[in-house]
């Protein structure tokens, strides 16, 4: 069997995900004397937030693509020192597909490389989940056209590959990622004719005390705002892209005003020419490695399912901790604070009170942000019967409505069995929230998937050895 450097001995802690939360957790745990494995599906550290150009691209100023780049380089330097000293092994290109509880801890099962050509098992006494989030999508007519990409996807391709999907890019959806994406796209040379945000931002004003306690967030927001002003980007609030036009690729979008419930207001449609659309409606915690073990979850103010953790960031599964977006989406600063807190808890040490207070302030802001951008129920008003909801299996709205209204399906699972929506490659990651909404069951429950990513059968067979 192929081996990782880890196979020789059991780690004190395996940290899954090398983004802000995982990096902070691994270096803090190593500072506190624990021997750690830091695993990530990507080949370099940073996760999605600190995603940066591959070294072959010779980027002299990666900081220009990032907010707070020095925070990342600080963490990366600490990691390098710990790696040198043998306290942390960074296992890049390691995609974790399952966690297995063993007698004295965990077996972390991974496939290696983007083609999943090999496998390994990393033994650890404890596991810290820092797998972050992926974007929430709501379908609309034309959203499967080439040139329609997720807002995070546009950023990821820009940051890692230094490429843009087009020259004139509309940015639409809801949430703080839109402003960050629009600001990096215009700074990198794209024209952004409009940022289309479904809310009116008034949600933030409801709790001024929470806002005042996180001045850094206001500075960050103002930074994006001034970049957009400088490039004359128009911000349309309480509006949405209700259709993307084109045959082989997007060439225009229709934008409409929304009422308070996100229902399009008839007669307010406007067409905007563009050659790309970056769209997203917030983020969803990526928690299947924990829910598969039965970890308890709760639904946040944004309607997203996150892991339930206690004050020391323990999940309800013994020996399994969670930090950052997996506990509810809140951004990099919060993820770093939670990574440090979780590391202290795993080492069985009390954290500094200042760190606890910082986490509380940032968590309160995260909840305010989540509530402000929660999708309103009226978004289904922009769907048409032939709009694909499930991109993988090409299941249109009409088939899902038929399953619900004529065949009596009342929950996403029954809709899935009757229509195949959510049964394709992405396993419902793209269509899950929309299917749950159309099924009329309100909030989606936690997904239970035996594997967190595709695993070749040959490797499953080999795992039985």
């Amino acid at each position, binding site marked *: 069997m192929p081996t990782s450097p880890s196979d020789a001995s059991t780690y004190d802690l395996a940290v899954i995900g090398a983004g802000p939360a995982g990096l902070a957790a691994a270096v803090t745990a190593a500072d506190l004397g624990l021997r750690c494995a830091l695993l990530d*599906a990507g080949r370099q550290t940073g996760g*999605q937030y600190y995603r940066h*150009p*591959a*070294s*072959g*691209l*010779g*980027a*002299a*100023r*990666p900081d*220009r*693509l990032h907010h707070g780049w020095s925070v990342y380089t600080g963490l990366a330097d600490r990691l390098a020192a710990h790696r040198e000293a043998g306290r942390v092994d960074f296992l890049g290109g390691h995609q974790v597909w399952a966690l297995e509880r063993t007698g004295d801890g965990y077996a972390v099962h991974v496939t290696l490389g*983007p*083609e999943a050509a090999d496998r390994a098992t990393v033994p650890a006494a404890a596991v810290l989940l820092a797998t972050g989030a*992926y*974007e929430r999508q709501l379908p609309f007519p034309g959203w*499967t056209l*080439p*040139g*329609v*990409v*997720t807002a*995070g*996807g*546009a*950023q*990821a*391709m*820009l940051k*890692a*590959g*230094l*490429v*843009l*999907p087009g020259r004139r890019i509309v940015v639409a959806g809801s949430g703080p990622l839109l402003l960050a994406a629009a600001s990096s796209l215009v*700074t*990198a*040379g*794209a*024209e952004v004719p409009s940022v289309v945000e479904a809310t009116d931002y008034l949600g933030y004003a409801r709790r001024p005390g929470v806002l005042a306690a996180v001045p850094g967030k206001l500075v960050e927001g103002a930074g994006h705002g001034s970049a957009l002003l400088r490039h004359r980007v128009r911000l349309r609030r309480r509006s949405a892209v209700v259709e993307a036009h084109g045959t*082989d*690729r997007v060439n225009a979008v229709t934008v409409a005003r929304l009422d308070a419930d996100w229902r399009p207001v008839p007669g307010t449609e406007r067409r905007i020419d563009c050659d790309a659309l970056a769209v997203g409606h917030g983020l969803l915690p990526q928690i299947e490695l924990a829910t598969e073990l039965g970890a308890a979850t709760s639904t946040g103010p944004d309607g997203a399912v996150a892991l339930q953790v206690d004050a020391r960031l323990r999940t309800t599964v013994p020996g399994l901790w969670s930090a950052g977006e997996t506990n509810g989406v809140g951004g990099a600063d919060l993820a770093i604070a939670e990574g440090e807190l979780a590391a202290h808890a795993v080492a069985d040490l009390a954290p500094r009170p200042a760190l606890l207070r910082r986490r509380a302030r940032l968590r309160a802001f995260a909840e305010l942000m989540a509530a402000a951008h929660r999708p309103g129920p009226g978004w289904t008003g922009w769907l048409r019967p032939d709009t694909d909801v499930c*991109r*993988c*299996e*090409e299941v249109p709205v009409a088939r899902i409505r038929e399953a619900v209204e004529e065949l009596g399906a009342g929950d996403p699972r029954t809709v899935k069995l009757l229509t195949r929506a959510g049964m*394709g*490659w*992405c396993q419902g*990651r*793209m269509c899950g929230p929309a299917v749950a909404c159309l099924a009329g069951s309100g909030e989606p429950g936690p997904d239970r998937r035996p594997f967190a990513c595709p695993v070749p059968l040959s490797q499953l067979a080999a795992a039985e050895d």
Partner: protein
Amino acid sequence: MRRTPAELVGAEPGPAHHIEFDGRAVPALPGQSIAAALWADGVLAWRTTRVGGRPRGVFCGIGACFDCLATVNGRPNQRTCLLPAEPGTTVTTQEGHGRADLAV
């Protein structure tokens, strides 16, 4: 003249090489994914869907959505947003489930 992403970060990449896309040469910079090299060449679609035969390319860019699948070096269903563009990599537009060669 607007700025490019490479100018923004002061990139001085190693020499470009080529990958093959549907029989023609497409330049790629060291470290770029296959999807990034195709985007840089203005190509946004390299798959047609199984049911409707509709074009697809990158959607999520992080390996979650599987829309960017293509046949790479003869292997179908490869996520091009995760795979590095290596010198000599061949990429073919994938039709349907990409396993036409298995048809009986």
